[in-house]
């Protein structure tokens, strides 16, 4: 393509990004602090807002831990063992990415709601899932379930089992093999998987809004608080809450690092086996 197209194309491309992404996100920051920092601070330190923040952190803690354990375990199973139905397990792991979050929430109601498959059993044992915190945790864990597997499994498949075998033949226990050999080689992929999982759980709205009932001060997470603030015409609270989540999203992008010319994450093109790789933002090295 000739040189004279270069500038017009750049202008149009950057203009589209400016109008679609940069200006709207920037304007939210302006609206949040429009009436001063104090007003924004007051809006996100009301009891309801603080509770929403606390609940979001609780949900992140539980859902991300569960997804991480599942993700590492499942990646090990899929990478190291051959068994019938492995492809089915693999296909089901990706399913939450293909399905609307609202449908994910609905599907949980159909199993764990009061008219659901386990509804009677749960009610008989006094366990509330839907319209309660366990439901929010499950909905969040479901939508974010694929990320750890998708980051860790390729690394495990690439590094093979030679080092693990060597350690095992030298008498290392399975736990020691995992801690000393497997974990150090997957830690980078794992860190990114956990980062993506955390970002998704923090920001999940569709799946959570269906199962939560959005009871203020009880089952209202940060994203539900933002929606409720808009509906109750308390824009400062909504914008300030949005700024908190937007800052976290920008932080997440910073952790994930840049992309090369092909658009691949630069960390992915690095060899996962290099032991001198010290660039570890999330997990300590020992």
């Amino acid at each position, binding site marked *: 393509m000739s040189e004279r197209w270069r500038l017009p194309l750049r202008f149009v491309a950057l203009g589209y990004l400016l109008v679609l992404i940069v200006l709207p996100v920037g304007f939210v920051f302006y609206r949040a602090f429009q009436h001063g920092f104090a007003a924004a601070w007051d809006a996100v330190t009301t009891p309801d807002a603080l509770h929403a923040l606390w609940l979001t952190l609780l949900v992140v803690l539980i859902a991300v831990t569960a997804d991480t354990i599942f993700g590492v375990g499942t990646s090990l199973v899929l990478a190291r063992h051959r068994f019938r139905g492995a492809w089915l397990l693999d296909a089901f792991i990706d399913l939450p990415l293909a399905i609307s979050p609202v449908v994910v929430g609905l599907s949980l109601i159909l199993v764990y709601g009061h008219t659901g498959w386990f509804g009677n059993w749960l009610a008989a044992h006094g366990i509330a899932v839907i319209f309660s915190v366990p439901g929010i945790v499950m909905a969040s864990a479901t939508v974010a379930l694929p990320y750890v597997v998708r980051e860790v499994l390729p690394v495990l498949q690439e590094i093979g089992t030679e080092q693990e075998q060597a350690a095992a033949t030298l008498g290392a226990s399975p736990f020691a093999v995992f801690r000393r050999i497997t974990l150090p080689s997957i830690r980078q992929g794992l860190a990114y998987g956990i980062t993506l999982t955390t970002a998704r759980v923090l920001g999940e709205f569709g799946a959570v809004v269906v199962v939560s009932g959005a009871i203020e001060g009880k089952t209202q997470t940060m994203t539900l608080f933002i929606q409720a603030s808009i509906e109750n015409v308390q824009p400062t609270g909504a914008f300030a809450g949005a700024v908190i*989540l937007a800052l976290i999203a920008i932080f997440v992008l910073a952790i994930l690092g840049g992309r090369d010319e092909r658009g691949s994450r630069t960390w992915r093109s690095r060899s996962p086996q290099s032991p001198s790789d010290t660039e570890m933002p999330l997990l300590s090295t020992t």
Partner: protein
Amino acid sequence: MAEVQLTFPSTPSTPTTQGRSKSKPPSTSLSKLRRFLANVAGPSLSVTYLSLLVVLPIAAILSTAFAGGWGAFWAAVSQPEAVAALKLTLLCSLGVALFNSLAGLLIAWVLVRDEFRGKRIVSAVIDLPFALPTIVAGLTLLSLYGPNSPFGINVANSSIGILVALAFVTLPFSVRSVQPVLAEFDRETEEAAASLGASSPVILRRIILPSLAPAMLAGAGLAFARAVGEFGSVVLISGNLPFKTEVASSWIYSLSQSDSLGAAASVSVVLILIALGVLLGIGMLRRRFGGTEAI
């Protein structure tokens, strides 16, 4: 899960180690425990977790949708409000997928071929819709293009608002699908065509577009699948006016909150089938043209 077998020996029995090994091999009870963990406990824990969160819930959607037979399912999805919502969703998703595949091509082109300061920031901005919570995305668009717009542009409560929200959340798919293909594109063909007197539009139409078509189609498919199920970013700006700006996921949401779970499950089945069909198609495209998974 009965036929689990290890692909690497978990007990030290290879000939190389037997000669110099001083330490005793692990006791049989320990190796039994280890084998049990590897062969039975690990896979069954994974399967249980996946069943509780994904498999059983999806099975419940199917069984609830068809609990009243085909008749009830059909009644739920052919209800006027459901038809209107599905139609709006499909049209908007298709429009955005097509528009963004062109915009994505343009942006990927600029990222690959153009050089300017701050290109890395532009690349990071494209990822922002991935990382930004959907409700925050909806709020940002509502604040700039809603009733209190500083530019006086109000697209809230209209299908244009839906298009803007879907364009926002699907842009990364469109860009990142074409970018790797464009980066590896052989420039010699282009230069040869130019030296033979082909104009830029001709080169674009005859040389670049044909080789990018599979990647653009895959990107459009991913964007479409995402758009069909989108809720958080759309819900604020669309206003959810029945028959006008109510998308399928909003309709499912209101059904689920009014305890019409059967109808909600039926419409969900339609959405799931559309998304899975599109993703299967992308998988076939990738196998055929050997594309990479950029997302």
